[in-house]
């Protein structure tokens, strides 16, 4: 099968650390997938090509401020709109380690798990965090520490299979590993 010359590789997340630390970029309600990564850039699914356009329509200075490990914090319905998996890919590729929101849209929630992008729901953490704060997130316990303000919040921790999925780097890699394990057994 011919592969397009501009995009010959398959997308795969690198394995994830389970304790994350970074500075906050804060947004309001209904951050949709069209502003996370506009359709005009969906001629590629290469993380490196999507990354420079992440959030550009809603926050033109995001690209200048974002540093590896940073955390996006938003209020309700984060990731609403299109089913494009390019949205969690772009967020990951720009260096964001985790998204914390009061609530997520349904398809984005599932896509983030499948892409190995950690996302957590916590009303308290969103209310107690401002732009520029430094957070530390422990995915195994769901604990969110605001290091700037000396506050601690508790999000619902992931069940073990989701942690495994995040560690594997997403659904496809996870499925592949399970298939290989099955083959090795039989």
């Amino acid at each position: 099968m011919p592969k397009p010359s501009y995009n010959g590789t398959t997308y795969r997340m690198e394995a994830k650390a389970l304790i994350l630390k970074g500075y906050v970029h804060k947004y309001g309600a209904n951050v949709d997938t069209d502003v996370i990564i506009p359709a005009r850039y969906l001629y590629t699914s290469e993380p490196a090509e999507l990354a420079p356009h992440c959030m550009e329509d809603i926050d033109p200075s995001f690209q200048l401020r974002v540093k590896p490990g940073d955390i996006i914090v938003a209020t309700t319905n984060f990731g609403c709109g299109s089913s494009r998996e390019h949205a969690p890919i772009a967020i990951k590729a720009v260096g964001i380690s985790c998204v914390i929101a009061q609530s997520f849209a349904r398809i984005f929630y599932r896509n983030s798990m499948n892409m190995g992008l950690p996302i957590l729901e916590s009303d308290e953490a969103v209310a107690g965090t401002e732009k520029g704060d430094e957070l530390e997130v422990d995915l195994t316990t769901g604990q969110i520490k605001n290091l700037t303000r000396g506050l601690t919040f508790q999000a619902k921790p992931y069940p073990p299979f989701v942690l495994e999925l995040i560690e594997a780097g997403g659904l496809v890699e996870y499925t592949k590993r399970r298939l290989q394990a099955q083959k090795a057994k039989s």
Partner: protein
Amino acid sequence: MGKTLAEKILSQKSGTDARAGQMVIASVDLVYVQDTTGPLTIRQWEASGLERVADPSRTIVFIDHAAPSPRRELSNDHIFMRAFAQKTGAILSEAGEGISHQIVAETYAKPGDVIVGADSHTCTGGALGAFATGMGSSDVAIATALGKTWFRVPETYKVVVNGHFSKGVYPKDLILHLIGAIGADGATYKALEFSGDAIAQMEMEGRLTIANMAVEAGAKVGLFPADDIARRYLEAQGRSHGFQPLQPDDDALYERVIEIDASTLEPTIAKPHTVDNIAATRELKGTKIDQVFIGTCTGGRIEDLAVAAAILHGRRRHPSTRLLVAPASKSVLMEALMAGYIETFVEAGAIILPPGCAACIGVHQGIPGDGEACLSTANRNFQGRMGNPQAFIYLASPATAAASAIIGEIADPRDML
């Protein structure tokens, strides 16, 4: 305890007694992708190592979002998609055939089916009583290979619509009103299930528009019963063989019941930049509109074009307002040609675009300029949606769109009917 439509379908397809809140693995009757999410789905499918397609005759690859392709990279994506179809035997729907959701309704979806697509508006199929929902590329890749996927059985909001629609008010106004009332996340993770007199009398075209926009309130699916209207729609396509009516049980358990009196509705508009930012059309009269777009999976069906043509007949677009019309599918285009609607549009000064998503997602065919306002019959008005974050998108019915194209400002269609 009886079952909702969602519980009935997922029980049947999972072989379990499926109840809201449970996780089930259900067989999938139809899987589809389109050309923005399809290439990634195919790459994920390749990467999974599963190396098979569960049922090629129920797997469809649509080229509709960039059709025909406006740039080299997208042309190459199309090559990649065609090669996948060729290799696996999956069905290919070429550029010009039309929008995936419309073709699925015309040709494939049946009551009681489970349908997954790598497009959030896959929920359109709910109009035919199918549990149809959008997913990301990785999920669809695995469903393509295995012919099954997991679901959390959704709780259901019952939306009961009684009364008669007033003249100039359409199903599009109803769904915009509902999204405005419950909010863009008002039904997140839930199923919407529609019933009532006004629904029982509503034609399939209107139902498809409503089911399509269930996701704009966050819903997983927007379900309609498979009744006489569904049977007649399938009959007209020669697909009513083995038709089984599908209704929810009278004693089904609903998380919430929302009642709407259709006779109190009026023409409604979603203002920039969220679909729940609604207003009565009459309150926005006089807002200058630079471009009107009549088309998409929520405004490009034959009923929609008939309403728009009736208003535009013998009239012309305002000289400073561009008018774009894109039929939802090739068969809609053919019907509109025979009915004389296309002639009416051309005489009214419209640009006719090929069947497909056209201007809706901002990759080609009608990107608005900086500071411009576009009135569209689409389902989404997010900032940048049509290709320019400096533009403003208003959503309305085809009647409101046609009336506004003539005046050059937002207009109330009741003044022209």
